[in-house]
C-alpha cells in the first residue's frame, strides 16, 4: 500500500501539465460500425484514431470511462475519411471529435500472453487480469524476403498418423485444412496443439489459435479442452467471435500473425491456426461493402486474394542469421458441399504450400480423420520428415495408392485373383490403422512403431474391426516392456538397423503372445 501511495505522490510531484496540439476531425455520419469523418487530411491508411468521448462530459464521467474507443482508417477520400470502429459503434455520435494517433494499428505482445485468451486488439478476455506490458507491434507488416528465409526442414509433428506419414508438415510451412462443415478440421488443429506437449520444451512450438467468427461456446469448449490436457500453458487463443464486429473479425488473423512473429523473431518456433479464413473473407466483404468499395466476384472486394496472401506470407522459416525461428500456418477453409473450385478455396489453395482435404463421405463411413490422401498434398514433403518416418511412410503411401486404384473392384472381391485380393485387404487394414480417435495424438516413436507393424504385415491376420484395439494394446506393450526402443527412435529420429531389429523382435513377441 505504501508503495502505491509513494508512486502516486511521485506522479503528483512531477505533474506539470503541458498543452498538446492534435490534428482532429469531426464525425459527420456513423452507422454499421463505420464512421465518416471530415478532416484528418494528413492521416494515412490503416492509421489508428481515437474517438474523443470526453468532450462535454464532467471530469468524473471522463475518469469513469475505462475503455478508450479506437478506430482504424480504411478509406481516404477527397473530402472525408472512413474509419471502422473497433468497439461499440453506439458510443460514436455525429459531431464527435476524432484525433489522429500518428501510428498504424498495433497491439501489445509479450510472453505474458501465454495461456491467455485475448481479443483481436490484444486485450485479455479470460478474466485472469491484465497482461504484463509488452512491446507494441503493428498488425500489418511486410513479410520476410527470400534472403532472410531458410528451407523448411524441421517437422511439425501433428500426432496424427495419416498426416505425419503421408502429408508431412514442416515448421515454417503453410498447410491448408479444407473440408465441409463437421468433417474434423478444427479437431486436427487441436490434436496438433495437444501433441506439442510431447515435444521437449526447448523445441516446442508456441501455439496460437485464432478463432474468427466462431461461436463463443465452441471457443470456450476448446479452451477448456486445452486447459484440462495441460496444453494451454504454451498456447494463446485470439478470438473475435460471431458477436464481434466485422472489423475485429477482420483484424483477428493479423493479430495472430503478429503474436507469432514476436516469438519467431526471438528464435522460437510458433504455430498459428486460422479458424477459419472463410469467415474472415465474409467479414472483409462486409467491411468493404460498408466502405462502398466496388464489389467483384461473389461481391467480394477486388483485393480479397491480397488479404489472404499477405497474411499467409508472414509464415516463414527464418535463416540462422535472423535467429532461425519459424512461424507455421494452418489456415482452415470451409467448403460448401465439397466444392473446392469455389472462389475463396481456390484462392487459398494457390497461396498455401499444400492442402489437407477432409471428405464428408469418408467421415460418414467412420474413417476419422477423414483425410482424402489421394488429393491431399504437402509441397514440402519428406524434407519435413524424420528419417524414421521416411522409412516407414514411403511404403505406406505406396500401399495406399495401390489400394485406392483397386478400391473400385472391392465389390467383385470373390472374382478377383489372390494378389489383388491381398492388396485390397492390406489397404483396408492400413486405412483402419490410420484412423485415430479425437484428442489422442501419438508421439513420433509410437507412430513409427505402429506404421512399421502395419506395412510389414503384422496386422494381416487381425480382424478389420479389431485393428484399432490391437494397435492400442501393441503400443501399451511396447511402452511397458520395450520403452528403450521407443526412446531411441524419439531421441535419434532415425530407425537404424539395430533399432529396427529390436523393434521387429518386440512386435513379433507381442503378436506371438496374443496368438
Amino acid at each position: 500500500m505504501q508503495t502505491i501511495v509513494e508512486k502516486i505522490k511521485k506522479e503528483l510531484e512531477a505533474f506539470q501539465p503541458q498543452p498538446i496540439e492534435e490534428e482532429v476531425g469531426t464525425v459527420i455520419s456513423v452507422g454499421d460500425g463505420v464512421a465518416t469523418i471530415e478532416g484528418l487530411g494528413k492521416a494515412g491508411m490503416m492509421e489508428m484514431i481515437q474517438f474523443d468521448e470526453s468532450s462535454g462530459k464532467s471530469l468524473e464521467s471522463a475518469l469513469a470511462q475505462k475503455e478508450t474507443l479506437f478506430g482504424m482508417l480504411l478509406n481516404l477520400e477527397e473530402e472525408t475519411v472512413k474509419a471502422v470502429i473497433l468497439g461499440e459503434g453506439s458510443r460514436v455520435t455525429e459531431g464527435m471529435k476524432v484525433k489522429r494517433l500518428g501510428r498504424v494499428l498495433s497491439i501489445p505482445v509479450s510472453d505474458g500472453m501465454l495461456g491467455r485468451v485475448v481479443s483481436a486488439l490484444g486485450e485479455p478476455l479470460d478474466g485472469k487480469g491484465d497482461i504484463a506490458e509488452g512491446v507494441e507491434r503493428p498488425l500489418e507488416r511486410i513479410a520476410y524476403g527470400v534472403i532472410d528465409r531458410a528451407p523448411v526442414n524441421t517437422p511439425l509433428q501433428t500426432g496424427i498418423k495419416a498426416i505425419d506419414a503421408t502429408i508431412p508438415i514442416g515448421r515454417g510451412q503453410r498447410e491448408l485444412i479444407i473440408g465441409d462443415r463437421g468433417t474434423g478440421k478444427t479437431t486436427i488443429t487441436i490434436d496438433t496443439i495437444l501433441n506439442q506437449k510431447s515435444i521437449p520444451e526447448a523445441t516446442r512450438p508456441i501455439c496460437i489459435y485464432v478463432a474468427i467468427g466462431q461461436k463463443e461456446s465452441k471457443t470456450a469448449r476448446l479452451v477448456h479442452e486445452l486447459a484440462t490436457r495441460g496444453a494451454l500453458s504454451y498456447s494463446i487463443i485470439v478470438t473475435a467471435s460471431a458477436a464481434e464486429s466485422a472489423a475485429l473479425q477482420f483484424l483477428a488473423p493479423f493479430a495472430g500473425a503478429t503474436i507469432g512473429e514476436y516469438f519467431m523473431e526471438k528464435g522460437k518456433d510458433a504455430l498459428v491456426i486460422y479458424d477459419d479464413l472463410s469467415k474472415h473473407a465474409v467479414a472483409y466483404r462486409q467491411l468493404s461493402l460498408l466502405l462502398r468499395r466496388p464489389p467483384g466476384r461473389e461481391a467480394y472486394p477486388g483485393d480479397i486474394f491480397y488479404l489472404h496472401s499477405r497474411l499467409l506470407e508472414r509464415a516463414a522459416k527464418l535463416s540462422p542469421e535472423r535467429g532461425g525461428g519459424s512461424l507455421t500456418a494452418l489456415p482452415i477453409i470451409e467448403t460448401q458441399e465439397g466444392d473446392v473450385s469455389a472462389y475463396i478455396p481456390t484462392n487459398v489453395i494457390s497461396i498455401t504450400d499444400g492442402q489437407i482435404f477432409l471428405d464428408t463421405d469418408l467421415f460418414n463411413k467412420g474413417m476419422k480423420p477423414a483425410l482424402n490422401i489421394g488429393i491431399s498434398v504437402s509441397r514440402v514433403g519428406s524434407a519435413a520428415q524424420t528419417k524414421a518416418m521416411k522409412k516407414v511412410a514411403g511404403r505406406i503411401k505406396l500401399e495406399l495408392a495401390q489400394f485406392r486404384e483397386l478400391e473400385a473392384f472391392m465389390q467383385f472381391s470373390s472374382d478377383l485373383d489372390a494378389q489383388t485380393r491381398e492388396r485390397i485387404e492390406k489397404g483396408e487394414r492400413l486405412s483402419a490403422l490410420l484412423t485415430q480417435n479425437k484428442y489422442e495424438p501419438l508421439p513420433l516413436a509410437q507412430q513409427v512403431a505402429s506404421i512399421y507393424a502395419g506395412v510389414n504385415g503384422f496386422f494381416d491376420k487381425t480382424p478389420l474391426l479389431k485393428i484399432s484395439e490391437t494397435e492400442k494394446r501393441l503400443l501399451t506393450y511396447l511402452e511397458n516392456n520395450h520403452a528403450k526402443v521407443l526412446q531411441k527412435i524419439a531421441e535419434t529420429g532415425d530407425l537404424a538397423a539395430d533399432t529396427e531389429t529390436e523393434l521387429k523382435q518386440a512386435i513379433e513377441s507381442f503378436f506371438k503372445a496374443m496368438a
Partner: protein
Amino acid sequence: MRPTYYAQALAGVLAGKEERDLKGILVRLKEVLRLRGHQKLLPAIMRACTLELIKRERASIVTMRTVSGASQKEILEQYGEMLPKEYTLRAVADPTLASGFVLETQHRRIDASGKRALRELYQKILVQ
C-alpha cells in the same frame, strides 16, 4: 468534370462579393456550363457550392473553450500561427474543463485543459 470542381470554383468567386453581383456570376456560370454541355450538373453544383460555402465558413471559426467563457487575448497571440488569416472567434463556457482552455480550429486543437491532464495522470497511475 465533377460538380464539386465547379462548386469550389464558384465558392472562390463568390468570396467577398456583394449580393448584387450574384446574378451576374450565376448567368456567367450557366453560359460556361452551356458551352461545355454540362447544364445538367447545375443542381448538383448549387448543392455542392452551398456545402462548400458552409465548410469555408466553418473553417474560419475558431472556438475557444474556457471554464468561465471569457476569451483570452494572450492565448490567441501565443497560438496565432495555427489560426486562419481571417477568423471568427467563438468563446464558449465549458465548466467541465476544470481549468485551462481548449482552442479549436476546423482541423487542429490545442488542449491545455485540466480535464485532459488529470485524465492522463489518472490513467498513468492506474496502469502502474
